[in-house]
């Protein structure tokens, strides 16, 4: 490869290879600066975007950002690429691809058919040329529906993961947050706990507890305890009730190594959980989490910018037909996404890229206390994400995770955006909320606490 170049005015810019071009074309973020990959000037960045716009999409099939010989994620990307699905856009450049995506030709059905014809790098590339409104508009045309005990991702549906974390996994403390969430109509995507430790006995108790609660109240939702995949495989083998298998994943083999996972492990977990046949309306059993900067933080990015690495993780995710993919956008800290502006852009990029690749994208709209961000930034991202048609967000009491020490969206936040945009929970869950008396048929919260739950308080 001889590299890529762009000329603007009297200046000519040279980019050494595809990954250099992709990195230099990326809107500014602290992680790429940290990695020494970012454009050196604003003009160089736009020049890279111009060069990228002229690049034929076919280039991505001939030049890999990381060699498949040393990286199983690259190999997976090559092996799973569908040339037939790619055919309708195979003649386009990246710039033309943006125009086509925004045009009426790219409707929901067409985009769905295209998904397996796209590689992560193609999608990352086009996202780098897009403004926020482009990311929202195209994503809003994608509908990626999945199912387990309810149907997620349908039009007009916005779901929440109820995240009842507790610093020492106290059963009553977890239950208190679960009750709070259910009373606010939260928990249709999953009731998912980040355990305080990876202790096998503690994790097992949490899994049984969630299973018992879902069973006792006949809640049409699924449970998950977010521990390492090997723990969950062991739990399945020992007969512990597992609905969804969770794992954090990244876009390079080296980064996945640092998580202690590989594709074979994920395949084993996926198969084991599917064989349990615990879903009633569908059998998507995987729950993945990702986030820009994870590869770099493990020093495993191999010269690839953090947004492209992130989209490569989606190739891993879609290989296992997940129920949920959650980009945890502001969790990693200011060294990767410095402030509210960078977090907002990254979240919308992740959602767009994941949706275009066919994934049921959700987002942990969040920030840490050492980032230059606040609740106003989260409100902006939440509103934009919901307009873009996001499948699910987090729901946590008051937006304050007392175990992981960061702020995410609250039960109130979910109700705000449902009210403003006329969105509803997953239909099966929506019906349950009304039957139990948590909500009125209009979707609004009922005035009083349902007897089934208020009775519990009298016994305490």
């Amino acid at each position: 490869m001889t590299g890529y170049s762009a000329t603007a005015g009297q200046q000519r810019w040279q980019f050494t290879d595809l990954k250099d071009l992709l990195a230099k074309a990326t809107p500014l973020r602290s992680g790429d600066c940290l990695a020494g990959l970012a454009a050196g000037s604003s003009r160089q960045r736009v020049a890279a975007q111009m060069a990228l716009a002229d690049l034929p999409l076919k280039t991505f099939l001939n030049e890999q950002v990381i060699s498949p010989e040393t990286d199983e994620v690259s190999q997976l990307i090559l092996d799973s690429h569908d040339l037939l699905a790619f055919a309708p856009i195979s003649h386009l450049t990246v710039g033309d691809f943006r125009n086509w995506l925004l045009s009426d030709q790219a409707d929901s059905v067409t985009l769905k058919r295209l998904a397996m014809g796209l590689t992560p790098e193609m999608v990352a590339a086009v996202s780098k040329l897009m403004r926020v409104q482009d990311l929202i508009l195209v994503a809003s045309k994608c509908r990626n529906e999945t199912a387990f005990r309810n149907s997620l991702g349908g039009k007009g549906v916005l779901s929440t993961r109820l995240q009842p974390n507790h610093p020492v996994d106290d059963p009553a403390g977890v239950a208190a947050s679960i009750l709070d969430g259910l009373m606010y109509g939260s928990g249709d995507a999953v009731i998912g706990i980040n355990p305080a430790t990876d202790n096998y006995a503690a994790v097992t108790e949490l899994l049984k507890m969630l299973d018992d609660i879902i069973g006792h109240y006949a809640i049409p939702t699924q449970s998950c305890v977010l521990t390492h995949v090997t723990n969950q495989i062991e739990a399945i083998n020992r007969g512990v009730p597992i609905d969804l298998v969770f794992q954090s994943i990244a876009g390079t083999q080296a980064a996945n190594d640092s998580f202690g996972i590989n594709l074979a492990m994920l395949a084993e977990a996926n198969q084991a959980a599917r064989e349990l046949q615990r879903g009633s309306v569908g059998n998507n059993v995987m729950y993945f989490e990702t986030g820009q900067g994870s590869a770099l933080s493990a020093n495993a990015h191999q010269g690839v910018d953090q947004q492209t690495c992130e989209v490569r993780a989606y190739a891993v995710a879609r290989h296992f037909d997940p129920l949920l993919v959650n980009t945890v956008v502001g969790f990693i800290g200011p060294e990767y996404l410095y402030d509210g502006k960078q977090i907002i852009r990254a979240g919308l990029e992740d959602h767009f890229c994941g949706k275009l690749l066919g994934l049921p994208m959700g987002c942990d709209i969040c920030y840490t206390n050492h980032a230059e961000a606040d609740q106003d930034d989260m409100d902006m991202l939440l509103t934009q994400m919901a307009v873009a048609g996001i499948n699910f967000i987090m729901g946590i009491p008051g937006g304050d995770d007392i175990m992981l020490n960061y702020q995410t969206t609250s039960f109130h936040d979910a109700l705000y955006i449902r009210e403003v945009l006329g969105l509803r929970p997953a239909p099966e869950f929506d019906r349950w909320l009304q039957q139990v008396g948590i909500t009125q048929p209009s979707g609004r919260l009922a005035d009083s606490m349902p007897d089934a739950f208020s009775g519990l308080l009298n016994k305490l």
Partner: protein
Amino acid sequence: MNEIEKTDQSPPVSENPWRQLRRYTDARIAQGRAGVSLPTKALLAFQMDHASARDAVHIPLETEALTEQLRSAGYESIILHSRAADRTEYLQRPDLGRRLDLRSVERLEEYRQQHPQSVNVAVVIADGLSSMAVQRHAAAMTQALLTRLESRGFKRAPVTIVNQGRVAVGDEVGELLGAELLVLLVGERPGLSSPDSLGIYYTFQPQVGLTDARRNCISNVRPAGLSIEAATDKLIWLIDESLRLQCSGVGLKDQSVSTTLQQTHKNFLLP
């Protein structure tokens, strides 16, 4: 009295009748709602907590005070510094926070030349993202752990304190001190309700360049979280198990008896 006046009299905030559940958790449950939104009082309480946490990130570790705490517990300490010059650089350059600066390396090499005998365990204290956590709990945690280990004949390196340090810096210290086992105590990201949470990272045979897959973590060590006693029990279990398996990290599963669940409250949602 007309219709409008009647409507205006209903309170705009709906309280939640499950406030009593707050005895089980510090989570912001039962906050009530104005329409579907957070009532003003709860909103401002949140904003104040966020403001406090933002401030806490930038409070520097009082190294002298910590050294004094350790000394009165019987432990001499060596003060080190990462390659991150100050807090601003620390926040933007994690790579610098993971490595010792040149002077610190020289300091440890010098120490090692004078004390060439090998040691079993090194305790490293790093300020991380909450100097408050380290200031409040690191000395007590160090004492609880080393008392147990020394009573069993473990030889220890001097305690080290790393300013502007991240988790991985412990591996470099451990390697330079020739320690077989490394215990790193670090201030965790401050949460809104928990500005003083200490994290513990354990590495078997520490060396520069190891990833998180080779470490075991015990999180949330603070009075309202995991107690120092419980954390010490867990850590001792991990250490014993890692010596048996000759590894740490993903290969070492924490299958110690679940001590946390035994002392806690029953799930009230089930009969």
